[in-house]
């Protein structure tokens, strides 16, 4: 880890930017990507200027870990009484002298937020302000994000091809009993994991917790809390996890509720395209970005519940249990590592609970069963399972769903309750959660996305439109030459998928055994 530190002096506007200039020189020397450097410089300069205008002194500290620049700007100043107001564009308390120089337009903090991927602002009136921001260098440098968190264990594969046929985006090939993923097509749903009987496909191992600061707050999906049968309800699971050393255990239910309410409010706006699609399931969002870019405007511009939880807890040691590979992907691809947030495998959490449930039962009184969860809001249609989801999205794209205001689409059966990473029957676990949720969970708020949803180039055959059309014609032609059995013997899920593989150079036509046999007979 590399660290650069600079002292800042308040009051001297002529000196504002000196620290940023020195930092820029260092970051250029180590060859930081120019696009990332630009964002870092903008954030640093705005923050440094704020310290000079408002505080008596401060420090600018930049750290580089695994290529991710993090800036920490702390000052001794008056502090900010109303953080929400301070983050509003146009709001400023800068003195007239600063305004005459073009500062004090109320755009500093919004600018910093716009150019960074993590933004934590803390302030104490009368003491000072601390701002911590990070820029995801690696993602920007490579121009691509980690697309999936599917882990492949080839030694466990028996070549049954169930995953090949289960994948809704034709993203899997199995050659020589070795599954492989076409990353540009994979939407990180759990269809292949659910189909795999041997565990050859699973969730990529999360990184170990990166902080020694314990105890942490733990956030888990409600589905996890109702995995332990009728005898062990969510409140007992929470107690067991507290026994394991977590300072606090929260479910994502309050963030789910906040998202649902906010999406419902959006749907009330007459200009909003209907139905409004909730971004509750990131795998479905991936599917929309890949296959239904025309529906991007229907997506409500909010973070998913787990992302929102991470965002709102990013200033304290926190751990998150993820229900599927996709949740892990969204938490690891857009956020710098090394933050005080860890992703914990559900298996590990399950072991922690099971090893302590008996202890809790013996040493402490049975906790109350928890109160029933509030019913879903009216006007929200929930759709479960990726195939149903795709069918509904096709209908929305055709404009034949005018009677639905809000759609909550989940890739898994019964939502996260049906994730292959859960062990309890989905419908039972869901019903148990509905009857006995957690007591007294603090309310949460929805978090608006700072990066808009955007189309993914997954289905494009070529960047050049003319070449793409030509390739499409060749695929159609080749598909017509193939037997149309969609048997999977060629290790592609269908004849059209093999044709695409051949045209795009991923496979040879000779992989089709029927075509080869036909030629031999002729």
């Amino acid at each position, binding site marked *: 880890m590399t660290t650069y530190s600079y002292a800042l002096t308040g009051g001297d*506007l*002529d000196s*504002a*930017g*000196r620290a*940023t*200039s020195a930092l*820029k020189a260092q970051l250029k020397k180590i060859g930081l990507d120019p696009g990332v450097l*630009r964002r870092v*410089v*903008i954030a640093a*300069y*705005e923050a440094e*200027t704020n310290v000079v205008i408002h505080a008596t002194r401060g420090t600018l500290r930049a750290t580089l870990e695994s290529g991710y620049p993090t800036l920490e700007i702390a000052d001794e100043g008056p502090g900010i009484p109303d953080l929400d107001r301070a983050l509003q564009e146009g709001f400023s308390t800068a003195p007239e002298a600063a305004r005459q*120089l*073009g*500062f004090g*337009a109320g*755009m*500093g903090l919004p*600018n910093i937020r*716009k150019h960074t991927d993590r933004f934590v602002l803390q302030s104490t009136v009368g003491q000072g302000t601390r701002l911590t921001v990070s820029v995801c260098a690696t993602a920007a440098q490579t121009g691509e994000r980690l697309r999936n968190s599917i882990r492949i264990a080839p030694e466990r594969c028996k070549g049954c091809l169930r995953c090949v046929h289960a994948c809704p985006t034709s993203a899997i090939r199995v050659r020589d009993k070795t599954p492989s993923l076409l990353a540009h097509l994979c939407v990180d749903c759990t269809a292949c994991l659910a189909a795999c009987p041997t565990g050859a496909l699973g969730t990529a191992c999360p990184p170990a917790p990166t902080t020694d600061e314990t105890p942490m707050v733990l956030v888990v999906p409600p589905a996890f809390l109702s995995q332990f049968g009728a005898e062990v309800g969510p409140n007992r699971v929470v107690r067991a996890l507290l026994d394991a050393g977590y300072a606090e255990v929260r479910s994502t239910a309050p963030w789910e509720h906040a998202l649902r309410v906010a999406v419902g409010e959006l749907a009330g706006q007459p200009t909003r395209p209907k139905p409004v699609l909730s971004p509750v399931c990131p795998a479905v969002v991936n599917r929309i970005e890949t296959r239904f870019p025309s529906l991007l405007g229907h997506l409500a511009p909010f973070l998913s519940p787990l992302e929102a939880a991470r965002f709102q807890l990013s200033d304290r040691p926190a751990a998150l249990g993820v229900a599927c590979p996709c949740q892990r992907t969204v938490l690891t691809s857009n956020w710098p590592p090394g933050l005080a947030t860890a992703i914990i495998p559900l298996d590990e959490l399950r072991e922690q609970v099971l090893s302590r449930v008996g202890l809790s039962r013996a040493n402490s009184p049975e906790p109350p069963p928890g109160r029933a969860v509030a019913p879903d809001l009216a006007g929200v249609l929930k759709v479960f399972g990726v195939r149903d989801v795709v069918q509904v999205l096709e209908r929305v794209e055709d404009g034949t769903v005018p009677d639905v205001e809000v759609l909550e689409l989940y890739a898994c059966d019964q939502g996260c309750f049906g994730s292959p990473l859960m062990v309890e029957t989905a419908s039972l676990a869901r019903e148990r959660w509905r009857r006995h949720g957690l007591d007294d969970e603090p309310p949460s708020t929805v978090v608006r996305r700072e990066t808009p949803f955007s189309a993914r180039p997954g289905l494009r055959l070529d960047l050049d439109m003319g070449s793409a059309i030509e390739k499409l014609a060749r695929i159609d032609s080749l598909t017509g030459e193939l037997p149309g059995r969609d048997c999977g013997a060629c290790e592609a899920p269908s004849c059209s998928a093999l044709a695409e593989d051949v045209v795009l150079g991923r496979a040879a036509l000779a992989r089709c055994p029927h075509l080869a046999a036909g030629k031999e007979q002729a």
Partner: protein
Amino acid sequence: MELTALIERSGARLLTRCRPEGLDVLRVYGSDKMSVLLNEASQTTLLATPLSGPQLLRLAELMDVPAICLTGATPPPPELVTAADKAGTVLLHSTAELARTCNLLDECLRKGGGAETP
């Protein structure tokens, strides 16, 4: 478009001794707010502004802008020009106010051929 050609066509006055040769301009952006200028600054963006504080030079250095065009009837302070020379920042001056200057520079860029304008 080369900055030298743009200066010639627009009639803006070159204030500094540091030479604009070899600098390319693809777009012009004007504002009287530092944050806006910071957001829009780039290696090929000519910034226009009625501001005249020394922080303009810092911004130019941080964002590698090719030049800054000061606008308005008031002559730029000589100490700013001296500091710009010292910092190696090219400063121009247009007596027209901000919007008019931006329109003029943008028009020159569009007619210049070969340059991409926003």
